[in-house]
């Protein structure tokens, strides 16, 4: 019997809290509660060996391994369908396993803006959250300390929402190419500022400072980029039990309480984990899927779905970008993260235009080492090609909000099943005209910047070439009204007294800021509410 097979995956007796999902939300909830309560975390994916990270980096660089392969994704376990107007590459957008998608994320951690919580009132589009920025503000600060954020938003970003204290670490210094962009932006009256990174600019929490591997997305061998294994390990040190390769098949329940999480294990057995409270933290796709798979006579349309909204309002952020070349060196691809952005246009959002932000890339154009592994040349000929291809690229990216719409949803595909015979998720993704219009607006600004820079523009990712930023949101939305949402303002399901959802799936609107800091803040807030009610 291998060591992996000998892991005890049996249920924990007398558990207070069962968390489903060991990504950032589940890990933070578990860590927060583990010292004083019996906590069990169940995750569908494996526990990855930290010693394998260099080998995963090699997969990331080599052309033969696609993105899902870096973290062993894909296959029957991760099967899904796409029935929507827009294709969604789900397995490029997630990692299953202890640490979840933070294992492959870029690691950008901005707070949502105040108006993001009141989109209906302030922008005339979407709906208001049942909580305000002020409600989440202390949790944002706490989440920044937990994750370890290097940033200077309180110092150099006049467009950032109010904050009392600096980020835990100083921001990364601007790049050389940032200095080129700065001249162009100054000419155009566009303000640049630092960006908050979930990446250590100095040693933090016994994790090293960034050493510049340049493969942040999809793997940081140094662990300088935060991932949720940090809080999984802390939770385990406090006594939590974390069970890997334990996909939850359904949540057993009565009319107003979840009673057990039924999970499968690699030995072919099925187990029931009972607990006083349950926190579902499986992300924006698997969370609604699990609720839909847990239907019953009491909940014929899916658990916690009296509103009928489980799975609806699936959103992501849309990418808008443009890039080109200069006639001078731009020093790209030394690091895998960006150091400057502009939120200047974010709060201009209204009914016609969505909020969006700009990102000034430090990794425009090809990476020479990746380029070297393709092509039919070698020796001097290859070196000539690399020298011709590398060195003068620039690019500006950006994220754009998409509006929540019921016709964009996550459902179940009745005709296709996963490795346990459960219907796979069906992604039915579509994008609204306001988002597409805003991508064009972002492109106008991006073109102007590149032209002011003197760049020859080579590509524009506009409405026809946009894609998702891999931020799944909106599928179990938060609302004070039980008919309008799945969870209440505390992220507790309206239908079930002892079931919370900690995930971007509760976002009523998405804003245009990367969602993980908000996920973390909400998770800490969920933990406090669970604690109060235990």
């Amino acid at each position: 019997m291998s060591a992996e097979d000998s892991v005890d995956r049996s249920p924990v007796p007398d558990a207070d809290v069962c968390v489903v999902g060991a990504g950032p939300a589940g890990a933070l909830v578990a860590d927060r509660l583990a010292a004083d309560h019996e906590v069990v975390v169940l995750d569908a994916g494996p526990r990855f060996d930290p010693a394998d990270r260099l080998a995963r980096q090699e997969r990331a660089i080599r052309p033969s391994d696609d993105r899902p392969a870096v973290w062993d994704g894909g296959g029957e376990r991760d099967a899904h369908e796409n029935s929507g107007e827009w294709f969604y590459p789900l397995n490029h957008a997630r990692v299953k396993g202890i640490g979840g998608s933070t294992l492959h994320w870029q690691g950008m951690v901005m707070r949502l803006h105040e108006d993001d919580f009141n989109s209906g009132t302030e922008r005339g589009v979407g709906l208001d959250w049942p909580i305000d920025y002020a409600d989440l503000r202390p949790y944002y600060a706490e989440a920044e300390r937990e994750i370890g954020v290097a940033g200077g938003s309180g110092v150099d970003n006049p467009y950032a929402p109010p904050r009392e204290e600096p980020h835990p670490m100083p921001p990364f210094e601007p790049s050389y190419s940032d200095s080129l962009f700065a001249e162009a932006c100054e000419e155009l009256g566009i303000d640049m500022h630092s960006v908050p990174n979930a990446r250590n600019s100095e040693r933090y929490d016994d994790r090293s400072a960034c050493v510049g591997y340049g493969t942040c997305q999809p793997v940081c061998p140094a662990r300088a980029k935060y991932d949720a294994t940090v809080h999984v390990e802390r939770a385990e040190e406090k006594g939590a039990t974390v069970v890997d390769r334990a996909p939850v098949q359904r949540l057993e329940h009565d009319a107003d309480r979840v009673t057990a999480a039924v999970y499968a294990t690699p030995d072919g057995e099925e187990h029931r984990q009972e607990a006083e409270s349950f926190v579902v933290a499986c992300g924006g796709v698997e969370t609604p899927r699990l609720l839909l798979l847990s239907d019953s006579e009491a909940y014929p349309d899916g658990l916690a779905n009296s509103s009928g909204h489980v799975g609806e309002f699936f959103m992501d952020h849309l990418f808008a970008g443009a890039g080109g070349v200069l006639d001078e060196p731009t020093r790209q691809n030394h690091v895998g993260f960006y150091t400057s952005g502009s939120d200047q246009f974010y709060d201009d959002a209204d009914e016609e235009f969505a909020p969006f932000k700009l990102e000034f890339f430090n990794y425009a154009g090809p990476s020479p080492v990746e380029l070297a592994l393709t092509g039919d040349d070698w020796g001097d000929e290859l070196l000539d090609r690399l020298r011709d291809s590398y060195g003068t690229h620039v690019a500006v990216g950006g994220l754009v909000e998409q509006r929540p719409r019921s016709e964009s949803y996550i459902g179940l595909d009745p005709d296709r099943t996963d490795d346990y015979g459960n219907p796979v998720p069906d992604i039915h993704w579509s994008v609204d005209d306001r988002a597409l219009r805003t991508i064009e607006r972002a492109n106008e600004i991006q073109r102007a910047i590149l032209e002011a820079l003197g760049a020859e523009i080579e590509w524009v990712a506009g409405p026809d070439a946009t894609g998702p930023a891999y931020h799944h949101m909106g599928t179990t939305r938060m609302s004070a009204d039980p008919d309008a949402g799945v969870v209440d303002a505390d992220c507790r399901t309206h239908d079930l007294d002892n079931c919370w959802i900690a995930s971007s799936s509760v976002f009523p609107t998405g804003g245009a800021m990367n969602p993980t800091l908000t996920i973390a803040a909400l998770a800490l807030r969920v933990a406090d509410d669970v604690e109060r009610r235990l």
Partner: protein
Amino acid sequence: MELTRRDAAAALAALGATGGIGLAARRANGGANDPDEDAGNGDAAGNEESLPDDETVRASMTAVAAVVYPDELTGVDSFVDRFLAGRLDGSNRAAGLREAVAALDDAGRSWHGAPVAKLSESDRDELLREAGADTAEEDRDGTLAERVRYHVVNELLLALYASPTGGELVGLENPQGHPGGTESYRRGPS
């Protein structure tokens, strides 16, 4: 430009000196690279006793490096030796490398009358192209061409261009895969 001991150490730091997940995880998944579904393995596959020893692998890889590395580099032999000293472990990946070298040497014997290390540089170049390693896409479990591309040609190119000297050849002191710190991205061109 000279490849140094530091470059070999850096290449190993970037790629790992142990086999790690390599093939094992992929095989456990039964994914697209499942060898059970693969008809492309060479003669030596699955028979560890017939795989070439470290010295043979080093000689063959050094001979190939002379072809696939740019002429302006010096110190290639010791760079390859040091790099392989870390890579030739008991892993599946190392076994794949040995097997690909064995297959390439077999092809050299059949087509040119000698293993790759005994051929002239022009014959080595010709052998690699005859094997199809120039146009093949790398695949660790694929055809001869794909395996030679993965385990031999790209193994060497990855080691070089993820090292500081390989990066500097292109104008990038801290190439992807090399933990070269967070200073160079801020510096302007020299």
